[in-house]
């Protein structure tokens, strides 16, 4: 299992300007000192509420946001800035699936053109599979073949190629987005809330396609979501974010069976369950967690202005990390 | 809010300076100089040179500019050589500014009255005949150059159905201010009404679509579901929301007064600043032209300032702060 992507001390700050001369007075700390590693072939979930910074991390990874400071390394090469990313054609290996299927497909282009776009720029790999480093061709027939092959993988008929996005449903459009992300044999796909905008029944369908692709082609996934239930189904490792920082990180097992941080426990307790008989029990549990959260805040958070700022992550086991006040600090 | 206004006013100062420099340079580019009109073909070159030197015309341009600015700030805009030979420009403009202003203000007010009532009528009767007629009318009046309509209006209401006087401003130095004021209204009304009739499109289009959007909004449905009568909903909620952006447009009407006056005054024979501009340009009276351009530039800046102030004042987000 090799290290694919390593993020070190990533910070993404947005300046706030106030006053008569529009001076920079403070910063919005969207991403506040994050470090973690993505191994090849593994799946990761990034969970948090809106505004926690998870989308910003995804965008910085892919190249749509510029980090304020910190490092991003891809297979040992530094790819923090866009120039560095361009130099190694980074995006042929790291792609993204967007949340809004309506706006992520150009309404004036046919599906064929949309999927072919990354192929036109990075070339068609000779066979499908992550980690392919060999020949790439820019031949138009090869591109067309590949587009048809991709559509088949996501379960859409061949005549889709000549149709327009408005002719498809949300779930179908999202599958097209997956096909586009898959086109150049990426090693890592960042999926930013890919099913949040879909009906529940359709969600399962799209998620299953993604799972199938992940297994068959050995692609690493970074799955960003606010929905712990979805993440549990899709990923092997989970990181929980709050206010731009990690509060807990570990395998899916660690998080769901041995949650340590009160924020994690709070999120878990909010997952609705179908078991009606345990309803009162669950409600009592939720209330207890809430009070625990407000009482024990000091042990887990420090104050940064008006924001709660989590402590650094401390390892509990080899895989499990929790943000706790360091002993003796 | 005061902070925004203060910043806005301060920004206007360098803008004013830039505008004045540009206008000054434009004026320099025009052929002819201040002595164009008063030169006698028999004057000898020495006299001409002396006169030019006395007027500072052989100084480098930036010094001339400073001199000019100094003069302007003291109220000296130069002397006219063609329009009214020998009068100071200040006097000419002073004589003609009231008619243009009165016409302009009436026109601005009428424009708002007409556009708003048209928009209300159209929005309440969406897609019915009256709405379609209003849309076609507004499209036509905005696509076709207005002076055509001005001419038609003049022929109609001055000659065919003689309601209004055909030329002049009704202002006479021998009369008192009040007499002049009311007499002027008779002369100013037709041009003002004509201008207003044919400039309703931008406000009409905007307001109508805004009103239609508001009507379809959820909060209107909620109010009606609660039993509120549609006309009350209209008055209390829809109007307020739709009118916010219109209010800030008021400043820009000030900017448009002089420009619109150029055509209207020419067609209607109403000697105000607009007609003055045409006269001065045909006669190459460069001092008058420069002064008018400067006036327009200042009006434009003031108009923009007024608009910004009104929108800052009217913006609910700013008010809460």
């Amino acid at each position: 299992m090799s290290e694919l992507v390593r993020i070190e001390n990533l910070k993404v700050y947005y300046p706030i300007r106030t006053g008569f001369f529009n001076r920079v007075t403070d910063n919005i700390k969207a991403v506040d000192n994050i470090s973690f590693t993505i191994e090849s072939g593994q799946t990761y979930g990034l969970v948090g509420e809106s505004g926690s910074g998870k989308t910003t991390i995804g965008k910085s990874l892919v190249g749509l946001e510029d980090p304020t400071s910190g490092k991003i390394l891809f297979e040992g090469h530094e790819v923090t800035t866009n120039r560095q990313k361009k130099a190694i054609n980074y995006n042929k290996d790291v792609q993204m699936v967007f949340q809004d299927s309506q706006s992520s497909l150009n309404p004036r282009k046919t599906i064929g053109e949309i999927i072919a776009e990354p192929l036109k720029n990075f070339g068609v790999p000779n066979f499908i599979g992550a980690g392919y480093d060999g020949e790439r061709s820019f031949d138009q027939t090869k591109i067309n073949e590949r587009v048809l092959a991709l559509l088949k993988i996501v379960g859409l008929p061949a005549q889709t190629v000549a149709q327009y996005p408005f002719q498809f449903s949300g779930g179908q459009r999202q599958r097209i987005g997956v096909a586009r992300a898959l086109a150049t044999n990426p090693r890592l796909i960042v999926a930013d809330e890919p099913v949040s905008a879909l009906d529940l029944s359709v969600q399962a369908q799209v998620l299953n396609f993604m799972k199938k692709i992940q297994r068959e082609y050995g692609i690493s996934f970074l799955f960003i979501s606010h929905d712990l239930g979805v993440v549990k189904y899709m990923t092997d490792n989970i990181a929980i974010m709050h206010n731009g920082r990690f509060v807990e990180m570990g395998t899916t097992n660690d998080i769901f069976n041995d949650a340590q941080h009160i924020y994690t426990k709070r999120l878990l307790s909010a997952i609705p369950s179908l078991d009606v008989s345990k309803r009162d029990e669950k409600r009592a549990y939720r209330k207890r967690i809430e009070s625990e959260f407000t009482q024990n805040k000091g042990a887990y958070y420090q104050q940064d202005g008006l924001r709660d700022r989590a402590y650094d992550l401390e390892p509990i086991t080899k895989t499990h990390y929790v943000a706790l006040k360091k002993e003796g600090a | 809010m005061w902070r925004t206004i203060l910043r806005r006013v301060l920004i206007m100062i360098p803008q004013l300076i830039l505008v004045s420099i540009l206008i000054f340079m434009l004026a320099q580019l025009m052929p002819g100089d201040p002595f164009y009109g008063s030169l006698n073909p028999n004057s000898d070159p020495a006299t001409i040179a002396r006169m030019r030197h006395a007027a500072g015309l052989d100084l480098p341009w930036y010094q001339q500019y400073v001199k000019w600015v100094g003069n302007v700030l003291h109220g000296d805009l130069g002397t006219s050589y063609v329009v009214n030979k020998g009068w100071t420009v200040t006097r000419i403009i002073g004589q003609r500014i009231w008619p243009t202003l009165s016409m302009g203000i009436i026109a601005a007010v009428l424009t708002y009255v007409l556009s708003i009532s048209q928009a209300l009528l159209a929005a309440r009767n969406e897609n019915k005949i009256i709405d379609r007629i209003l849309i076609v009318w507004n499209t036509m009046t905005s696509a076709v150059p207005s002076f055509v309509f001005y001419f038609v209006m003049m022929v109609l209401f001055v000659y065919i159905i003689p309601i209004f006087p055909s030329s002049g401003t009704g202002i006479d130095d021998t009369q008192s201010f009040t007499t002049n004021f009311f007499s002027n209204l008779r002369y100013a009304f037709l041009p003002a009404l004509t201008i207003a009739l044919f400039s309703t499109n931008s406000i009409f289009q905007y307001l109508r679509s805004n009103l239609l959007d508001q009507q379809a909004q959820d909060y209107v449905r909620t109010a009606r579901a609660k039993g509120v009568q549609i006309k009350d909903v209209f008055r209390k909620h829809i109007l307020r929301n739709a009118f916010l952006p219109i209010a800030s447009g008021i400043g820009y009407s000030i900017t448009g007064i002089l420009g619109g006056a150029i055509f209207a005054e020419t067609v209607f024979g109403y000697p105000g600043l607009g007609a003055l501009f045409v006269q001065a340009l045909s006669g190459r009276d460069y001092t008058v032209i420069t002064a008018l351009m400067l006036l327009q530039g200042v009006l434009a800046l003031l108009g923009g300032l007024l608009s910004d102030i009104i929108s800052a004042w009217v913006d609910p987000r700013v008010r809460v702060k």
Partner: protein
Amino acid sequence: MDMEVKKQRFGSKFIKNFWRELEKDNLALLATILLIVLFLFIIIGQIFVPTDIGTMSNILSANLPPLTNGHILGTTNSGADFVLTLIASASNSLIIGFGVAILITIISVTFGMIIGYFGGWIDWIAMRLIDFWLVMPLLMILAIIFSTAKGLSIWSLILILAVLSWPPNVRLIRTLTLSEVNRDYVQAAKISGTPWYKILFTGIFPNISSTVISDFALTLAGSIGIETSLTYLGFGLKHGTSSLGTMLTVLSGSSASSVYTQWWLWIPVTLVLIILTFGIVVLGQVARRAIDQRQSVS
């Protein structure tokens, strides 16, 4: 997907949509028919127009009333046939209008899209410049330039008009581009490795093209209007080149009676002007609706 096939399909779909929109709107249909008839008249009429029509001077047959000597609408004050002069004027006005509109559209689309896409300091500087430009008294400046040049040729007029009036259009294009730039398909194009100019002109532009077309029509009608208005005041084309404006200068300073008795001097010209400008604007609106019609499947 072959680009050629796509272009053909777009073209035929557009025409189909265009007719559909026209059928829906009776008034637009009427305006379009009138406009097409006028266009044909002008184009075919060109054959009959003598090349010296603007400069000929035939005092003997000047100002004849309609239906004398085979002149359907009489003659102008230089003795030329009125109808032929009208044809020449209309085509000149159209050439000017198209020239200006094409120039302005190309310039403002290029700048507006680049400014909207890159934002940042480019945007800030450009907006300050445009705001400043709008403060200047454009109409006056145009009038001044036209008057000092002792009458201009058509191409100089086109250039001057275009160069002085393009900034306001940039604003519109910039706003349109801004609303598209934040949509995810632009982000997706960026990480697909597409270079910025392709994103702008083959990705974003098709999405704003409908408004660009209707804006083109407005600019076209507007420039015909500005040229006509300025020439009417006396500042504009040099003597010998006729446009609809020069034909209307007869209106300035006429007495009431001549307006009645010599109605043919101005009513046909006015009608032509109205049909042209109104028709163009309406066509632009129809075109915009046609392009936006993506709900229809061919």
